[in-house]
């Protein structure tokens, strides 16, 4: 099994999936991609990418250890560490592009300053530090050509101040990322909120950075099947023990000094989250690495570093949007959020692999054993017969992986209008009652009463006082003032249509023309030409109107004026349009009923008095219970 190759395939698969989601993000917006909402406007994306910055801290830590403290042992790690940092920060910025609502304005930070904002400071630091990393990294690719030797020499000459600047900038933004959350004492759960978040962030970033480097070294050796320089990993792990210990003390100290111990044992999911995070990010890796014998064990190294990294990630995600003070503030990230984030990391990993295979970043320059150059198909030299293709090249397989998973991603994304507009698909529930309808399509705490009699009486100027079958038909058939105003008589068989039978969705339009049924042999069994004029492009506009076959359909829009006419309005829109337009006119005409057009005239709360005994009245959707729909103004009729 070729580990390098398989790893790459997996990475390409994830990247393809993420590319589809990235497209979705820009075509349909944030609401269609994430589960973020007005209550939790930051979530998984922010938290997760904060952890990338933390795990990139190896770049400056190794810089400090190697260049400042002259620990030569770490030499082989320097370039890897800087490359990791560079890719970590680049991923951060790329991911920001998806996260920001208006990413094309990101450069505004350069021209519009707000020095009070921690985010402003972080932004600048990240910009500068990424530049520094490029400067630190540039000599590596320049090695391969002698053309830019002068530039390279120049950069190397200033290496010390550049590294120093990098360390200073890192100190700043690693902690400032914590400062971001200082303004949210009202939002964050007290266990997570602390006045020393910046310090905690800084320390945990150092630990995380070291563990990440150890993990990377392990992974690289595993991938390229090299014998492990256990010593180096052991060195990193035993170094991180100190930092992990310090981090633990700082965290526990904060909890104790701020009197938050009680919360630890509160038993809510947030306290479990905190304890779990504490275990993962400090206690477990600390215990694993503090014993020198364990520290040198390969398995322990694998597990310990993974757990430590997981802990840092969990910490950032918790603070970035999950650990809310209010237990009801909770959101579950959408699968697209998760996959897009992981996809960005996969891309970064692919770039990483490409760079270490192309340049001298690591102490060796590894090769992908299957990175075959493309070879043409084989032909028999004499007859010219095709002998078959050689093994598909790695490139082909990677492209294939990307394309296939991109397609799967596209298929998985629901591109519906509804989904993009965040409208919940609430199916309309029928009204109850006959003489007096109790209308409550979404079964919330408000209802509308519709007394049939009053309305019919009004329509026919009080001439009809009791309804007989004859009179119903009479009313149905006569003019614009008839029952047809509400009952459009649009259903096949000229059935007296009931509102909720067609307006099936509370808040969104529905497509009512069932093309498949009309064309199917088990349905209307029509030929194309029955509706479409032969020779013309077959569209909804050019097709025969509904009234062509169903002459009794009366509602104007049903005539099929344009494709839109096949969409019938939402229940709410239909009701409002029907009632409000008449009520508005009548409220002006009828001097004794000035309040006819007020919402409160129709909308009521509670249980309708007109409900017959035994009729079910289930209020199942308490949405907007908090919010008032108007109730009658006291003293006004």
């Amino acid at each position, binding site marked *: 099994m070729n580990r390098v190759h398989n790893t790459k395939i997996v990475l390409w698969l994830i990247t393809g999936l993420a590319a589809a989601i990235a497209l979705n993000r820009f075509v349909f917006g944030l609401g269609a991609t994430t589960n973020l*909402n*007005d209550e939790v406007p930051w979530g998984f994306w922010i938290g997760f990418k904060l952890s990338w910055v933390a795990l990139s801290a190896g770049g400056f830590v190794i810089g*400090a250890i190697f260049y400042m403290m002259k620990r030569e042992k770490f030499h082989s790690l320097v370039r890897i560490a800087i490359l990791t940092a560079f890719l970590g920060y680049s991923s951060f910025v790329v991911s920001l592009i998806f996260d920001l609502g208006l990413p094309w*304005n990101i450069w*505004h930070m350069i021209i*519009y300053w*707000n020095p009070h904002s921690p985010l402003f400071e972080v932004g600048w630091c990240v910009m500068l530090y990424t530049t520094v990393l490029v400067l630190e990294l540039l000599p590596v690719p320049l090695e391969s050509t002698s053309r830019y030797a002068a530039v390279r020499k120049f950069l190397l000459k200033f290496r010390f101040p550049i590294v120093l600047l990098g360390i200073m900038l890192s100190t700043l933004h690693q902690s400032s990322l914590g400062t971001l959350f200082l*303004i949210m004492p009202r939002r964050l759960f007290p266990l997570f909120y602390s006045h020393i978040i910046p310090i905690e962030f800084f320390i945990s970033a150092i630990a995380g950075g070291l563990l990440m480097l150890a993990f990377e070294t392990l992974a690289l050796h595993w991938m390229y099947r090299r014998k492990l320089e256990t010593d180096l990993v052991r060195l990193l792990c035993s170094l991180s023990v100190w930092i992990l210990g310090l981090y633990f003390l700082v965290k526990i100290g904060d909890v104790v000094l701020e009197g938050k111990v009680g919360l630890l044992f509160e038993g809510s999911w947030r306290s479990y989250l905190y304890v779990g995070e504490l275990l993962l990010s400090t206690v477990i890796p600390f215990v694993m690495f503090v014993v020198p014998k364990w520290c040198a064990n390969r398995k322990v190294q694998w597990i310990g570093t993974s757990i430590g990294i997981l802990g840092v990630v969990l910490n950032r995600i918790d603070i970035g949007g999950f650990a809310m003070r209010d237990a009801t503030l909770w959101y579950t990230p959408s699968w697209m959020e998760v996959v897009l984030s992981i996809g960005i990391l996969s891309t970064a990993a692919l770039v990483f692999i490409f760079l270490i295979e192309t340049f001298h970043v690591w102490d060796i320059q590894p090769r992908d054993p299957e990175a075959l150059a493309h070879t043409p198909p084989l032909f028999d030299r004499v007859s010219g017969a095709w002998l078959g293709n050689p093994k598909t090249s790695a490139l082909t397989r990677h492209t294939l992986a990307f394309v296939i998973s991109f397609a799967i991603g596209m298929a998985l994304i629901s591109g519906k209008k509804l989904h993009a507009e965040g409208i919940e698909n609430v199916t309309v529930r029928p009204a109850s009652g006959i003489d007096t309808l109790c209308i409550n399509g979404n079964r919330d705490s408000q209802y509308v009463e519709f007394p049939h009699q009053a309305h019919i009486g009004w329509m026919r100027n009080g001439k009809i006082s009791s309804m007989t079958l004859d009179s119903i038909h009479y009313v149905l058939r006569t003019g614009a003032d008839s029952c047809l105003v509400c009952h459009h008589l649009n259903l096949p068989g000229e059935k007296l249509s009931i509102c909720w039978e067609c307006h099936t969705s509370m808040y969104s339009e529905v497509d009512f023309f069932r093309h498949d049924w009309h064309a199917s042999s088990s349905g209307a069994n029509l030929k194309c030409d029955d509706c479409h004029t032969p020779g013309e492009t077959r569209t909804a506009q050019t097709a025969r109107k509904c009234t062509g076959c169903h002459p009794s359909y009366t509602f104007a829009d049903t005539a099929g004026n344009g494709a839109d006419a096949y969409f019938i309005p*939402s229940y709410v829109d239909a009701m409002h349009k029907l009632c409000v337009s008449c009520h508005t006119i009548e409220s002006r005409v009828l001097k004794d009923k000035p309040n006819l057009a007020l919402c409160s005239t129709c909308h009521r709360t509670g249980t309708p008095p007109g409900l017959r005994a035994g009729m079910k009245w289930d209020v199942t959707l308490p949405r907007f219970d908090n919010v008032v729909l108007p109730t009658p103004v006291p003293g006004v009729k």
Partner: protein
Amino acid sequence: MSKAILTDVTKCIGCLKCVEACKEVNHLEADVPRVWDKNDGLSAENWTSIIQKPGDHYVRKQCRHCLEPACVSVCPVGALHKTEIGAVIYDSAKCMGCRYCMMACPFGIPRYDWDQTVPHVEKCILCYDRIKEGKQPACTESCPEHATIFGDRDALLKEAHKRIREHPGKYIDRVWGESEVGGTSVLYISDIDLDFLSYQTRPVDMPLPKETSPAMDAVPYAFFGMGGVMLGLSWIIKRRMKLSEEKSKKEDSTHE
């Protein structure tokens, strides 16, 4: 002169005229429930809402126009701005959509156009343009009961205290917005507790930007401090290495 709104919860009858007026002057569209709504009636299309509390109490929710607004202090590009008049206004041309303002606001006010591909932050702007023209905000103008009124902040504060004094027992003896988070330009007097309007049950009086400022003030110290420490460290280590080298050289020479 700093302007303000005073809302008297006891007078509000929940007729929603203010909500309608706000929608009209700010050209907000009709809204339907969206999956990302918070259950308080505010949305990208509703900058003010009426919250009903048991016992026919109606509380109008809107941006509080804090005197030291958290949202303004955190916006990295200065898209939010506290004006002289007291309104906290929003410049959509500057915004980059980081939503930090939404996270920072202690009252959870700013909303987002989640369904848009060019989304903006949406919140009450105290009808800044109307005030500048010498008019009052649409919501206060439309209130039939004068439950929500507009005026100078000082005058309204006096009025609030006067009402509380003159009707003993009617109000809770507190003007919401007088001192919370450093004071706000939207004031409330009420006969029910209004702390539910903010995230924390009892908001402290310290302005939120003050939570960040110690850390922000420490920035130059951290920056140059770390630089100093690193320089010092590297100097010491270099010197030590040199010394030990010299020493070993000396030892070498004595051996010869």
